[in-house]
């Protein structure tokens, strides 16, 4: 360092971003925060790939005739839209980015329990991503993201094996993330950070990890069987050889239904943090919100065959699974009620993260309630495999999970980047996303009940008006998603430097500098306060919490 360095420039604090530069310092890092950023970049990339496919799908559906692309191309588009969005964006989105970045800080740890395994997870994800890209670029796959047999094993002449193996590898990335989180939450909490003091974000990630650990291996082995069946014609899923195609569906949905909760639970965790912060309140019914996360994870495993009510399962099995499906609805409802009750007598601020949280509440409520329709056997028969289902799961997975993800990204952006994002633009983007989303997907509920089946490349003319509405909404939605990316990038260079705790938020992650140092804390924090102690933060002393009867 030259002696002539002017002393007047403020000394830049060392943090995890400026500690080291160079490609190797990123690609070989074991710092959970840097790995989170690696994930952020890679999943954003896949989000826009998946989004591009979605755009083409919507454009094709603008007219009833199949005129934009070939039928085979269309089939590949919705297949790869699903596979990319589910396995390469939604499942890793909040856990691998926000969870990875924040969870160790929230519990007062220096890092995850297994930092090298964390890096390995990212590399597995990247390997899987490259395999998927290779599959897409060399012809793609047209089985639908569900890989239903015997179409996928014996009839499709696209790259089923490549796609299956890519998802197999990405599964191990997901498993290792879950494993890392569970061990970290059990073993790495700071002194005083008891289970009842954990932020609900951490509880949500704990529940998510349970699903990742116990569900993902089942889809892994199922994909192994699909690949083996396709390569060697073993007969396990092929009725011509004595196998049962419904067995595939059972095994597939055993994971793929709970997988929805891998997407939505972390989002619920994010929203809980945001609502508490911007209402300046302890979460109403902390224990119930925590418990409901765990029950959603557990009950989520009991309901899978509600995807199969018309598939040929027995009437008795259908009754059992329909009944069990409502067991997930109760904890979901409990969460919504508790969030709403938290607003009561709060001191509510309307910053962009809170707008996203409100958006989440609205869209998740509608997504959840339409889930009741699908769990009801009589209605399911009519609306399953129609646009009703498409609308329902987009309300949950895009309306719910993605709103939470964006809200969380705004909320913690000052911590992650050390910069403030432009608030006005952010509020505008939240509004655009909300409006665009509803315009895109609400017409699809009607479309579904009227009877338009999903995965249709061309459709009878009477469905056109609703489809045009949906496509128009998708355009708005696309703009809503591009905006944050632009202003986040902008803020990294031009945004105002963020203070350590811009929101005056509770939680250990806000008590370290922005951006944090490599080991998060100067010295081991010791927790002596309850979660969401906004009374102490706002008044300097503890307020006696009331229990309303």
């Amino acid at each position: 360092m030259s002696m002539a360095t002017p002393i007047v420039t403020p000394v830049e604090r060392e943090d995890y971003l400026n500690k080291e530069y160079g490609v190797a310092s990123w690609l070989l890092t074991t710092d959970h925060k840097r790995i989170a950023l690696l994930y952020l970049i890679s999943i954003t990339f896949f989000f826009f790939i998946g989004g591009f496919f979605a755009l083409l799908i919507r454009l094709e559906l603008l007219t009833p005739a199949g005129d934009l692309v070939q039928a085979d191309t269309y089939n590949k588009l919705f297949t790869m839209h699903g596979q990319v969005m589910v396995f390469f964006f939604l499942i890793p989105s909040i856990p691998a980015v926000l969870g990875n970045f924040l969870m160790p800080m929230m519990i007062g740890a220096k890092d995850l329990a297994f930092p090298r395994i964390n890096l390995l997870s990212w590399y597995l994800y990247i390997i899987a991503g490259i395999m998927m890209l290779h599959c897409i670029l060399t012809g793609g796959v047209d089985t639908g993201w569900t890989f239903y047999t015997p179409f996928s094993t014996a009839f499709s002449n696209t790259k089923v094996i490549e796609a299956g193996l890519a998802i197999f590898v990405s599964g191990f990335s997901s498993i290792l993330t879950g494993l890392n989180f569970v061990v970290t939450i059990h073993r790495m909490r700071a002194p005083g950070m008891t289970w009842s003091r954990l932020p609900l974000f951490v509880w949500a990630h704990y529940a998510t990890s349970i699903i990742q650990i116990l569900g993902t291996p089942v889809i892994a082995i199922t994909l192994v069987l699909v690949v083996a069946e396709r390569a060697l014609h073993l007969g396990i899923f092929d009725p011509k050889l004595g196998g049962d195609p419904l067995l595939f569906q059972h095994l597939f949905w055993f994971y793929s239904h709970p997988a929805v909760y891998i997407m939505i639970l972390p989002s619920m965790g994010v929203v809980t943090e945001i609502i508490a912060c911007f209402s300046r309140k302890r979460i109403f019914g902390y224990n119930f919100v925590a418990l409901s996360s765990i029950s959603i994870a557990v009950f989520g495993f009991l309901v899978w065959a509600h995807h199969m009510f018309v598939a040929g399962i027995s009437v008795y099995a259908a009754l059992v699974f329909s009944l069990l499906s409502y067991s997930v609805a109760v904890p979901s409802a409990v969460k919504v009620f508790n969030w709403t009750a938290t607003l009561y007598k709060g001191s509510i601020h309307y910053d962009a993260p809170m707008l996203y949280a409100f958006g989440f509440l609205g869209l998740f409520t509608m997504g959840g309630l339409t889930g009741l329709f699908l769990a009801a056997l009589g209605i399911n028969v009519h609306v399953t495999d129609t646009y009703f289902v498409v609308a329902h799961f987009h309300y949950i997975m895009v309306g719910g999970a993605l709103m939470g993800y964006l809200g969380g990204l705004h909320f913690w952006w000052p911590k992650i980047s050390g910069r403030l994002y432009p608030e006005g633009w952010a509020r505008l983007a939240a509004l655009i996303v909300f409006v665009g989303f509803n315009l895109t997907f609400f017409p699809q509920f009607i479309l579904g009940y009227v009877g338009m089946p999903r995965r249709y490349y061309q459709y009878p003319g009477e469905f056109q008006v609703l489809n045009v509405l949906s496509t128009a909404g998708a355009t708005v939605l696309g703009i809503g998603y591009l905006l944050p990316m632009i202003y986040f990038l902008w803020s990294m260079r031009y945004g105002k430097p963020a203070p350590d705790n811009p929101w005056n938020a509770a939680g250990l992650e806000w008590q370290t500098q922005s951006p944090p140092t490599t080991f998060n804390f100067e010295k081991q924090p010791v927790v002596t306060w309850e979660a969401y102690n906004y009374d102490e933060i706002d008044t300097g002393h503890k307020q006696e919490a009331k229990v309303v009867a």
Partner: protein
Amino acid sequence: MFDNFPLWPARASTAAGNVDALYIFLIIVSGMMTLLVFTAIVIFAARYRHRRGVLAEQIEGSIPLEITWSIIPLGVFMVIFVWGAVVYFHSRTPPRDSTDVYVVAKQWMWKLQHAEGQREINSLHIPVGRDVRLIMTSQDVIHSFYVPAFRMKQDVLPGRYTTAWFHATKAGTYHLFCAEYCGTQHSGMIGSIVVMEPAQYEAWMSGGNTGPLSASGERIFAELGCATCHRSDTQGRGPSLQGVFGKPVQLQDGRIVTADENYIRESILDPGAKIVNGFKPVMPTFQGLVSEEQVNALVAYMKSLSGASAAKTNTATAQPTAPAKGNQVQ
């Protein structure tokens, strides 16, 4: 109703009303829940917006409230479950003595054959006011027989039969869709269900019929030499097939199964799977030797041996909305 902006599907079967009623109930229930939550959010958000100097009031939670808003939704859910289950159970339980239509799906067309013998492709003509039962199988991948106007959908699987039934109530032409993704021309695998007034249906039926399906089944039965073992007396190497259909069968391993369509189908294609008590496993498999249509014909023949079609004719004629038709037409 706007022609290209439908908000509600046509209602043309007995099941449609049931499904719609439940659907409307659910819209009301979930509308109320949405209204409740959204009103609360809007009121709280406005009433408790941040004001300088006004602090939030810390509230721990409330166990009675938590229990209330767990139990009440659960109660509502159970009502929905029971109602949905009743509707479903009804739609899955075919009435006795329905008219049978055999459906073979393949990439990417529907092949349908009436028990009376008429063959159709991608369209199905049926009369108003009669119970129609579909006995469906696929030649290749999974398809799904979906008629929105009937609120009826059933996946069609290769290697086995699935069944569904409906009772049309309104004449007209309705969409038939394949609802399970099945490859390139999935969206082209559509057709029409033509529901006709009984008189028109009679006229349609009488044109170009080749004789009942059971008759072709009988012919195939003879051609394949089935009768050498399955003799009508009890002296054959195989069990007699007279009156077997729909009856319980005692198997060699002690199980008792009902001789339904799937049982007969399996017995033709995989004879070793279920051996009738007292017989030797000597029957060769006919897998690959008979087409799906031929299996359907054999099943129809087997049923006719049990007098199923005769009974059907009786009830069909007995129904006020469906006057004389059936076997005498052929």
